[in-house]
């Protein structure tokens, strides 16, 4: 057995990484909080052009998982997972970048990136349903901890399609897997930021990263990342292979990735000290995304309960 990505998959990741480093810096993420970006959707269209958004029509989860991870690293303020992972396989006729799907498993029909979408996948009576733009009565904005998420409750009058239980379950798993991958990316980002910071920041005449107390915080975060990541890649692979246990694997991945991100957020904040607690510093853009995503598509306790039903 070789448990590794192909050269093509790595090249796809590298292309996305370069694009996002260029087009989606923290200042761009921050502009999504206020909605006053001059070219607010340029990253979305760039990802569409790169073939990320419609990738699941031709390719499988394992082909895109690293790219999804990179969109987490950059905290892309767009419904990448909701559109590319959850929506596109259910709505294969809208992949041309003309439409934007958002989706959620929230029982109150709260969806992220609501003002960017024209197709809404909502969970109603345990089934995903499609609500189109004409079916929407109102989008009631809801303050999300991550302002870039621009969440809203969808008030709708008409459902276009109701998906089967099986389609719903599979879409949910894809949402949880994509979110787990983004959480891995966010974990890496917060760790990278903090490592750079503690190397530079001097107290008592030395970099604070030379202190054991600081080192051990970050070593723990690095360990959490090390052991969450392979479970995400394994779930992507078994999902692609149609493994009947893939759903359990997704649950393991989401539980571990959520925990890794939350732990790393705490460690990152602590190691930054007061600067990390300030609104002007960029850490909170990533930390708050991690909080939101750890709870989305089933939190760690939810997914451990799912695993428990399979093994206990």
């Amino acid at each position, binding site marked *: 057995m070789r*448990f590794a990505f192909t050269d093509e998959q790595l090249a796809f990741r590298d292309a996305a990484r370069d694009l996002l480093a260029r087009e989606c810096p923290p200042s761009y993420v921050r502009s999504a909080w206020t909605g006053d970006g001059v070219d607010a959707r340029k990253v979305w269209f760039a990802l569409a052009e790169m073939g990320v958004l419609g990738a699941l029509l031709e390719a499988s989860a394992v082909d895109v998982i690293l790219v999804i991870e990179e969109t987490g690293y950059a905290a892309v303020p767009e419904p990448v997972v909701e559109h590319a992972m959850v929506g596109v396989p259910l709505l294969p006729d809208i992949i041309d970048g003309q439409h934007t799907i958002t989706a959620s498993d929230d029982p109150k029909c709260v969806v992220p990136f609501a003002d960017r979408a024209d197709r809404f996948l909502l969970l109603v009576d345990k089934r995903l349903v499609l609500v189109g733009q004409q079916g929407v009565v109102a989008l009631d904005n809801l303050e999300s901890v991550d302002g870039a998420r621009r969440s809203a409750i969808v008030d709708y009058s008409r459902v276009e399609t109701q998906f089967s239980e099986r389609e719903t379950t599979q879409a949910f798993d894809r949402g949880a897997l994509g979110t787990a991958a983004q959480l891995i990316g966010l974990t890496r980002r917060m760790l990278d930021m903090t490592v750079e910071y503690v190397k530079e920041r001097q107290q008592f005449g030395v970099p604070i990263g030379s202190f*054991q107390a600081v080192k051990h915080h970050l070593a723990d975060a690095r360990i959490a990342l090390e*052991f969450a990541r392979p*479970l995400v*890649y394994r779930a992507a692979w078994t999902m692609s292979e149609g493994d009947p246990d893939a759903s359990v694997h997704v649950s393991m991945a989401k539980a571990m990735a959520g925990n890794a991100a939350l732990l790393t957020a705490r460690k990152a904040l602590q190691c930054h000290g007061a600067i990390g607690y300030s609104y002007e510093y960029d850490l909170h853009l990533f930390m708050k995304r991690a909080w939101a995503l750890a709870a989305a598509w089933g939190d760690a306790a939810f997914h*451990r309960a799912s695993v428990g039903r399979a093994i206990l």
Partner: protein
Amino acid sequence: MPRGLVSGDTRDGFAAHLEWERALFDARYAVVSWPEEYGGRDASAMEWLIFEEEYYRAGGPQRVTQNGIFLLAPTVFEFGTKEQQDRILPRMAAAEDLWCQGWSEPNAGSDLAGIQSKAVRDEQAGGWRLTGQKTWTTRGGFCTHLFGLFRSDPEADRHRGLTYFLVPLDAPGVTVRGFGRLDGDEGFAEVFLDDVFVPDGDVLGDVHQGWGVAMATTSAERGLTLRSPGRFMATAARLVDLYKTRGADDPRLADEVVHAFIDAEAYRWQTFLTVTRMTDGENLGAESSLTKVFWSDLDVRMHEVAMEILGAEFDHDDSDWLKGYQFALSGPIYAGTNEIQRNVIAERVLGLPRQ
């Protein structure tokens, strides 16, 4: 598969385990990843992992030969001469020579480079004379040979001037005194050396280069070879069974059991990723420290959950959980404490400045 063996860290248990080790060797299952000429099967790293999973899933006992076959052997393959390999490896595989580790000293534990045991050159006799004391030597009281580090150049820096020696424990001047571990088994030993002669042929690697040679061994110990995922998957599976038979619908305990099971799976898949990278020729170096902290903490936690499931029964547990817990508690301490490992992760994986 032998059942109900007494711990191999006792004198009687060790003898019983040796019979098992020799049965494994006769069936060519003792050292599957070694070349055929030394008693192995040329198994790839991935095949070795499969063997380990099956071994522990079937309830296979601890490997009392492990310090030789998993710690010393990789170093002999890497640094030994052909003569040393031919002389040492077949007897090690057959459990005829039994190797223990001579790293720690009373004043050198985590600070391994602080060792004081000396090697003095005996030019006339063509070798070295070793004097000093080693301690915490696991199964030292039952083994026949010791591998260890000795200070051969007292003038050099702490990390230089060390040489890696192979010492038969029946050599004149060697005294071994066994003593009890936490669980009462005589698993530890002190080894006293008083002007013990070791010929040049029993120096492993170059003279004064012992630190680099030893680091190859400790890296193997922290990482994969000593603690393959199979062991922890087997413990996690036993924990699931224990919960199912005793747990009786306690959601909090169920959550703990599942958490441990997921962690064991994570270790398994992290290992597959790691082995694939190694097979592709990557040098992982300090990354083995990530693994050591994770499996040792996981092992303790699994036993703590079992303790809770068993309740008062844990105190007179006859299902190995009590014994296993006491053993698991050594994990975060041996092979470099987890505090040292976190320093290594921070400095050599994350690139933080040294203190």
